[in-house]
């Protein structure tokens, strides 16, 4: 059961795990919109250490305005960046 749906406003958590994760530093704390629900996948943060990554976690594509991500973004205001973010990294915005 996915917590968020396409179009929903979300924020990436400002979390700083010490180990492997797939949420780049540059996107933490940023606000975006769910572009789609990708499905559920074993958690890479656990797979990386030999665990089976179950139960699966829901993965989303999230769309961010570049101007939100980089305060000094020099391109046009409508430019976008999209990443895949796991549900446990997201909170409602």
């Amino acid at each position, binding site marked *: 059961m996915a917590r968020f749906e396409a179009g929903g406003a979300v924020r990436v958590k400002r979390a700083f795990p010490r180990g492997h994760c797939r949420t780049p530093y540059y996107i933490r704390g940023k606000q975006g919109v769910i572009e789609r629900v990708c499905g559920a996948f074993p958690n890479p943060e656990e797979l990386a250490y030999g665990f089976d990554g179950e139960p699966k976690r829901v993965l989303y594509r999230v769309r961010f305005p570049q101007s939100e*991500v980089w305060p000094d973004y020099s*391109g046009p205001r409508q*430019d976008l960046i999209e990443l895949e973010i796991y549900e446990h990294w997201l909170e409602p915005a």
Partner: protein
Amino acid sequence: MSGPTSEYEIMSRAMQELLEEKGVITAEQVRRRMEQFDEEFPARGSRVIAHAWADPAFRKRLLEDGKAACAEWGLDLEAERLIAVENTPEVHNVIVCTLCSCYPRALLGMPPTWYKSENYRKRVVREPRAVLKEFGTVLPGHVTVRVHDSNADMRYVVVPMRPACTDGWSEEQLAEILTRDTLVGVTLPQARAP
């Protein structure tokens, strides 16, 4: 082959031989994989996208579910999940993996050295237009540049805009202008009259 054998080449061969001796893998399996990467995978992307250009119904299916559309067409992308993103007069897509070098290998073969380079991984998310310019691609200000960081389980391929002068071209001719760089989004297909 040039230059002295590096320590890493030696380490890699040693690991492979040990695994073969222990029956974990066979030399033939590795050889077959090398062949696939060299001979099979690199040609696939151009053919799939050329087919999408030629067949609007296939294009629609590809955009909805990249992996299923490829499978229906006879291409097994193995473990990779594929999202095809289309360029339009208003939107230009470009792909990167900032964290390592995730890339749709089963569709495009091995990524080019520039894709894996620090400078590309660092800069294309933050100043995509400047990086595209270094590839000779300049986009007008009214076009949205949409960067995709392949940071988790999905893989991406760009469906470029089909140049107008390619009307009536065969899929083989279309595939020829769909170079690898156009499918990652750093260049645009260049059409000359056949």
